[in-house]
């Protein structure tokens, strides 16, 4: 019998500005939950502006950890644009909303398993 897919943890990237502190808080949330590579859905809907230091910290976070099972959802236009410009999709899977992310992660869709 197939083992059920683990339920993705839901985290939030606090806004309204993506700063280094926001990214540090996200990293702390990841650490606190001891996610051990389990699926994570990060809601980005409150991030309406991007600070270079925050974007740099997010890139560093992505490169320092295994984020292949980490899905960013509900990106605002400002964050979406920066995500495209710096290529965040190389490290994070990006979905339109949490429902799409949950469905993908739980169904084990090939496209969801990694960016």
């Amino acid at each position, binding site marked *: 019998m197939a083992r059920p897919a683990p339920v993705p943890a839901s985290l939030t990237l606090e806004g309204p500005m993506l700063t280094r502190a926001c990214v540090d808080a996200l990293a702390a949330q990841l650490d606190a939950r001891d996610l051990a590579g389990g699926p994570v859905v990060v809601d980005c809907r409150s991030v309406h502006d991007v600070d*270079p*230091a925050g*974007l*740099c910290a997010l*890139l*560093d976070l992505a*490169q320092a950890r295994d984020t292949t099972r980490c899905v960013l959802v509900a990106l605002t*236009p400002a964050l*979406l*644009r*920066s*995500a*495209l*410009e*710096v*290529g*965040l*999709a*190389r*490290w994070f*899977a*990006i*979905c*339109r*909303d949490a*429902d*799409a992310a949950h*469905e*993908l992660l739980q169904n084990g*869709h*090939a*496209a*969801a398993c*990694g*960016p």
Partner: protein
Amino acid sequence: MWAVIFEAADDLGAGLRDIAGRPLLIRQLQWLRDNHVAPVVVEVSDGPHAARLAALLLGGGEPLLEGCIVLPSAAPLGLAGAAARAGAPRGEPLLGLASDLLVSGALPAPCREGRYRVDAPPGFAGARCEFSVTSGRAAPASARQHAGWGLRIESHATAHALSCAVLDGRAPDVLVHAAQVRPGVWLSRGARAAAAAQLRAPVLIGPGARVLAGATVGPQTILGGRALVERGARVARASVAEDTWVGEGANLYEVRVEGARVESLADGEQRLEADPLLLRARRTAGTAPGARVLALLLVCLLALPWSLSALLQRARGRPVATRRRLQGQLLWFGALGSRLDCVPALLDVARGRRDLLGPTDPGLLDELAGLAELRLAAFDLTPALARSPNPDTRRRMWCWYALHRSPGLALRLAWRGLLGRLGG
């Protein structure tokens, strides 16, 4: 019905190719809108084209893009992957269109599931291509014939050939956003051609573009928005990208030109045109007057210590500064090996040849060519912009800065860098 424009796996960024004055992606969105297909998911895979597509999709100003769902991906996901990530409803019909495929003509009503084969427009020998309508996220087995034409825009040469067909009236379903002043001669809004300039059909002069007296433009030529063709220049069977300046005496034939970059339409070979007197980007904003004055003041302030160091360097038989050509500009680079090396760069700033603040990396310039105007600056903001030990992070942040550079951002970073230094 939802639609997904997914990246063609072997042809990233195809949606940026110009079809008679508008990007292919906008043409695709127009076709979908004409057929009442909404919402539309647009996949953008990571690559050098992503920043340009981001500017097009999220820069505002294009009504067709309202309601589009932009989906970044690391590599092309295909129809099923992109639809799943965009949250397209399962079990409902979904139109899948590759990013390099332009289709015309009305969809049947009701639009039944199946693979739709489309023939190339008259005069094009391209292979038959297809799009699909499916509710199962997998390509359906049944195949139908679509009433309109379709063409895979696999290169700039194909895009140029189709653009000329559009101007000639051989592909009437594609709208030209310009006025036809003579058969095959199209002038966009704000475009001006001197009375003594020759325009040979088919030709499209883009919005705000200018053709000066004595220049010859056409046949089979597309001038992008705000392009400028100087006196005596000849442009034929060519595509000139927006904001490109074609200098006096330049002779362009069967090429695509973007700033100083030239690509042959015959074989796709690319090269960087070295002579800025013949070709360059018009969008060189130049150094701000305030920055030039400030640079001059700093040069005056540092002149004495720099002169003393330069004399010592000379006495050792070593060069004080070297001159290199970068992005068509001859720039000075200090060779003292100290912080006073900024003085020659400041002289360039005072001359208006480079900026005062910004990240500096010659390697990056090659990568960014065609993406954004990033010129070497006198003072490097990298420590404030990308305080990261990871070179890949720094490179990506430089790209980001190049796309977002503004006096306000530069000052903010300079202030942050200064505070960082004071704080140790």
